[in-house]
Structures are given as C-alpha cells and as structure tokens.
C-alpha cells in the first residue's frame, strides 16, 4: 500500500533506515522538497557513508524492535569515499545469509543504491518495503540469550554431561 495509507489490520511495521550522507540522505531530502508522500514507517539514521554501517547496527535495530532495516548508499562507482559502498555490500551479503539462518525473512533487510537525484526512488523503495514487511507481520526474533543465561545453560549442560560421565 503506497502513499502512507494505513492498513485496516492494524499492524504497522517500523523500519530503521541507514542512509549515507552524500547520495541517499540527500535523495531523501529531495523526496521531501518534491513533496512526494510515502509510507511513514521508515525512520532514517544518517551516516557519512554506507561503509560505516556496522552489521551490529542492523542487529541492534532488530533487537530494539524494528521489523525491517533498509540500507541506502551511492550507486556503485559513485561512493563519495570511492568504495565504501562495496564494503557495505560485502557485509550486507554476509549478514543477510546469517540472518536468514536465524529465520529473518529476506524482505526485512534491504540494500538499495539511491543517487542524490533519485528522490522518487526513495518513495518507491520505502513504499514497496513497507508493504512487504507489513505482509510478513511483526518480527519475532527467537529470544536472544543473555551472556548470563548462556553461562547458566552451559554450566547446567556441563554439569549434566559431567554427571553422566561420572556415573558411567
């Protein structure tokens, strides 16, 4: 559903976006200047370059309750810092496979190259992604174990294993 209309079902995804300063953030400003209405579900965090986007940021966003994460950088060859976007792509691919394994659907994590002049692409991508994530419903991450819990479980397992060993 485009143009920021709400669904009757009530679930509205929250998507965190990381946009590079030079292309995609500028593009999203242009979307505003051009008054192109889009879904209100995306909240943008600015970084200087998509190369700055640490996979931990994406994990943190999901942990804090985001239903999806969008990454925006300059088109290949256009990065203001030469090739930060390639580095971003590399990390993105790896992280995506990893998250997939953890049960996070493909559509929740998206990377787009959006040039400073492509204000309309911001609108299109945000609307599209919002719609896809809305269909998927809220993200339910398997509860991530705290270090203490790990320790605890590990210990119990060890104890159990040890006990078995001893008894046999």
């Amino acid at each position, binding site marked *: 559903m485009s143009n920021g209309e709400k669904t009757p079902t009530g679930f509205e995804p929250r998507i965190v976006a990381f946009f590079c300063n030079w292309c995609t953030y*500028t593009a999203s400003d242009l979307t505003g200047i051009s008054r192109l209405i889009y879904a209100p579900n995306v909240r943008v965090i600015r970084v200087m370059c998509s190369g700055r986007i640490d996979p931990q940021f994406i994990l943190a966003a999901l942990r*804090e309750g985001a239903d999806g994460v969008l990454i925006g950088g300059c088109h290949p060859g256009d990065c203001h810092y030469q090739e930060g976007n390639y580095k971003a792509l590399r990390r993105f691919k790896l992280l995506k496979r990893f998250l997939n394994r953890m049960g996070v659907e493909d559509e929740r994590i998206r990377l787009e190259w959006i040039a400073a002049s492509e204000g309309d692409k911001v609108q299109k991508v945000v609307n599209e992604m919002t719609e896809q994530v809305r269909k998927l419903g809220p993200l339910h991450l398997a509860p991530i174990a705290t270090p203490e819990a790990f320790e605890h479980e590990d210990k119990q397992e060890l104890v159990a294993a040890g006990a078995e060993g001893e008894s046999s």
Partner: protein
Amino acid sequence: MSGQNGNGKTNGSAPRVGVYVCHCGINIAGKVDCESVAEFARNLPDVVVARDYKFMCSDPGQELIQDDIREHKLNRVVVASCSPLMHENTFRKACADAGLNPFYFQMANIREHVSWVTKEKDEADKKAKALVAAAVHRVRFHSALEKKRVDVHPDVVVVGGGISGIHAALTMANAGKHVYLIEREPTIGGHMAKFDKTFPTLDCSACILTPKMSDVKNHPNITLWSYSEVVNVDGFAGNFKVQVKRKPRYVIEENCIGCLQCVEECVFKNARFDDEFNENLGKRKPIYMPFPQATPPVVLIDPTQCLRFTKGKCASKCAEACEKNAIDFDQKEKIEEVECGAIILSTGFKTFDAERIPQYGYKKYANVYTSLELERLVNAAGPTSGEIKLRNGSTPQSVGIVHCVGSRDQKTNAYCSRVCCMYSLKLAHLVKERTGAEVYNFYIDMRTPGKGYEEFYDRLLEEGNHFIRGRVAEVTDWAMSPEEQGKLVIRVEDTLIGVPRRIPVDMVVLSVGLEAHDDADDVRRMFGISCSKQGWFTERHPKLAPVSTATDGVFLAGACQGPKDIPDCVAQAGAAAAEALALVDKGFVELEPNTASINADLCCGCRTCVSMCPYSAIKVDETQDGEKSIINEALCKGCGTCVAACPSGAISQNLFTDEQIFEEIEGVLSYV
C-alpha cells in the same frame, strides 16, 4: 534501553539537553503538532527544557536557544526542524556564540523526512517524536570537537572552454587567480563559435566572442590546454589533483604561429575530408586549423587521414614548409598533473541526433538540415561563405523550420530545451533576410521568456513569417499534387484551425534540442558529483545553490547543468567564478572533525582496517605491545569504513561513534 532518568556520557557534568521544535511557518506545523512533540520531548532522558517556536532559524529563534543555554546551563541542544544539510551550521554557530562547543548539537529532520512526505497527521506526529527521541538519545553522548583547518591551493581548474568556461576563467584570472582552462577540442569557443548571429539582439557572435577568446589566450593568469581531457581527479575541496591527458596534435604548440603555410603545402592539394567544425558541410585537409579565429591559433594533424600515419610515408611537404619547425610527427600523448583549490565544470551540451526521429527524414532527404548546420550555412565564415544554398547549389524559395525536435516529446526528451524557439526565430529572420524565401515555423507553443525575447517574436510576426501551430507528423518527398512535385512536404495538423495540412518547401530545418554529452556520466563520476536522469549535472540546491554541487569545491557553469541561453550561461559562469573565488581567497577550508582514531589498547594488529581505507591513511606501527594500527588524521576523510570493519571495536569515528549510533537506534524505536 537507558531508562528515563538520564545516564548519558558526561564530559565532566551530566548532560542537560534543550529541545527546540520548529514550526517552519506551516511547513512543519501544518502536519506535525509541534507543541505535543515538545511536550513529549520534556520526558526524554536528560531533557531540561523543550519548546516549540515558529521559526527556529530566525534571530529570535536562535536567541531562544542561546538564552536557555545560559539560563538553564544547557550543555546539549537538539533542534527538530529541516534537514541538517540545510541548517546544521546555522544552529552549530548559534550554540558556539553562546559559549557551547558546536558539536554538542544534533538536528532532527522533521520537515524533509516528516511533514513534507507524510499523509496522515497522527503518523507525522509519531514519526517526528521518534526522530526527536533519537536525536536526544544520541546528543547525550556527543563530545566537544574542533574543526580542522587546511590551506587551500590558490589555483583553479575550468573544464570546458565554451562561452561559460571562457567567462568563468577570465573572471577569475582578472581577480588574480591562476586558471587552467582544459578544453577537449582543438579550440575553445564551444557552440557559440559556430553561430553567425545571436538572438535576440542579432549581434554578431564572432564579434562578441572572439575578443574574449584572445583574452584567454593572452592572459598572463590563464594556462590554456586545448585538445586535452581530464582523466583523473583526486583530493578534496581546497586541494585537488587533476590529471590531464594532452592529446598529440603533431604540431608543437609553442612554435606554431598559425601562418597556415603547412596547410597550403600539404600533399593533398584539395581539401577532401569532412570538416567537423562546419558540421561536415565543408571539407578540410588532414592538417588544418578548425576555423580562422581558433584559439589557440595552432594547426593540428588528423592521424587517421595524414599519409604519414596511414601509409607510413609522405613527402611531408608541411614539415618542409614550416619555418618554425613546428611539425612533430613523433609527438606522444602526455599526462600532466595540476593542483588546484577549486574546479568549475562547464562542459556544455550536445545537440539532439535528428536521425532518432526517422519520420523527419534527416540524412534521408538531402535538403533536411539541422539548426546547427543552418548556423554554419548562414555564417559568413562557413562553408558557403554565408550563402544559404540547397545541396544542388540553388537558393531555397521556401523553408520550413520544425521546432521541438527532440524536446517536449515523451519518446525522446520530455523537457523543453529553452533556446530552440528563440534560435528558430533568429534563423527564420536570417533566412528571410538573406534569401527572401517564404519561411514557415512549425511550433507547439512559442516560448519566449527573456529580456527582449517576446519583442523579437513580435518583430518576426511583422516581418511576414508564417507560424503554424502543431507538431509536425512527417517530412516526405511523396508529392500528391503538381505543386508538391520535387519538394519536401511537411505534414502537420494545424491545431489553431483543426485541419491537417501539407506544406511543400525546398528546405527543412530541424530545431534540435539540447542534450547532455554521452560521457556526462563518466565525467560527473570523475568529479564526484551527480547528474539527473537526462545527464545534466545536478546543482546542490535548485534555488539557493544553483552553481554549487554536492561536492565542495566543484562548481557548475552553463549548459552542462541544463539547457540555457548565452546570457544565462554567462551569468552562471560569473556566479561559479565568484563561488570558486570565495573558496580560494579565504585561504583555508574547515573540515568536519568526523575523522576516525584507534584505541591502541583494543587494537590487536590484525590489519583489517588497513585494506579498508581508500586513502591509505592507516599504517601499522611496531610498539612494545606488538603491532598496532594508527590513523593519520590528516589523510582521513571520515567515511567510517574502517570503524565498521574493525573486529575488535578498537576504532571510533568522531560524530558517528558506535555509542552515538546505538543510542540513536534505541531512541528511534523505544517510544513510538
């Protein structure tokens, strides 16, 4: 989540945040309930005051912040208003003026990212609150920073020597700057050098342009490199390194005096090769000067035609004839490097390829010309010495000028090329004046905004030119009546009377639109700027920064930014020169302190960061505790790629620390 009670990092004292929500008139307040956003902000961690106000960027708005800094001992400030790319510096300065380090400031973009793009008011409120929370969370972890100053190289490079580049170069050279003017073709002058007259005043193009061209040539502050192209650009505003490929002309430029003795003596007695400067309507020899006033006034040899290169041997009469020993068949391409503080791009445009609209018969019918070809035909220095002749040498009795070829057309270019109506009028006038022919203009709308332009149109109406409103469907030689026999027939629906018409003429002129160069995408990439889908270079702001680009220190002049006429090109070139002067005259640039640094205690010496850095700013040092990476701050440009890559979390980037970004993530999601 860090809780509501505040626990931000405190360089000394606890954070005390002030939040200011701007209405921006109704730009924000029309969609966002600014009062409720301020109310919401009051409950965010460490917030001491939160207010909303009509225009935060106004003087009273800024004073509001400054008073609060003093009164409430604020040590952090958040303004929720427009994009940081718009007003971050304004508010940083306001903070600094009140004694607060400007980097204790953060902006939330609730205009471009909220009020202008959101449909529902309640959704806009929610999003604005989330962004404000993110900014508040983050700002608590800011620290005091200093901007770095770097000296600026005083020279300037101008790329493209049409009227725009020429004017920009002269303006800066007259101000005492050394300018390198790089032109791809053998001569400067660009399109304007090809015209006979210029609208609307009909002053002679050469008379106003060639003096400026020779000024360029003779100016002590201008180094003119024609037949040269930029191949690589390194560096940043204030200190660029530009590599220029200087193509071989096989003539030593310094020796050639332009006497043309060599051309005279060339073994080709007759000129028989297509003359590009004359739009291939005339012929030239393999050794030639593009046109008599070419600047520099130096000949060149076309190695695809000269026998010395094609056959490997030639009597080389040209070299013999040259008293200055200027001919050098062994000349090689050279790469030279120049340093400069600012760059102006003025690479202009190309004309639309009329063959892309086959129904207009260009290259199919001999007497269908483009407007640029007609410019050469009416030019006294052109291939026919200014006589308008058909291919068979006769003078046309009737001429049809088809407007908007490759403009205002969904199939080719949707935009209006801005100059075609006016130059069509100019050409109509010249054709009528020189030949007395009946002239028909086929137009969609007449667009004549500009000083003296509408008056020029009126004059053409009075001169008895025909104006037919309608997009031409076809140009054909298929005669349907005796009077159409041997003519070109223009088929058009005359939309003013609603009747399809057939107008037989001797000559058809296609008023081709303006397009970006084919290599615009490569060029803009080299200079780190962007271009529109059509290939026009993008200015930083369409209204308020029309000659700046997203890359500091790179400016735009003329038609490379979009179609425009000569007066607009010259005005823009002057503006670009002024911007470049403002940069280099200041003598230094201040850099955002967003550089990265490595905590040696955490660094494990794995070198992951070293290969990440595009600027080779990271080196490995042998220390007592083993190998450690260190960043040379002077080389770091602040992309943060190494920070994201460091497996040990040892690297931190000012203004974008992990902590700040994690807080931003938390803030943007924790409340709404």
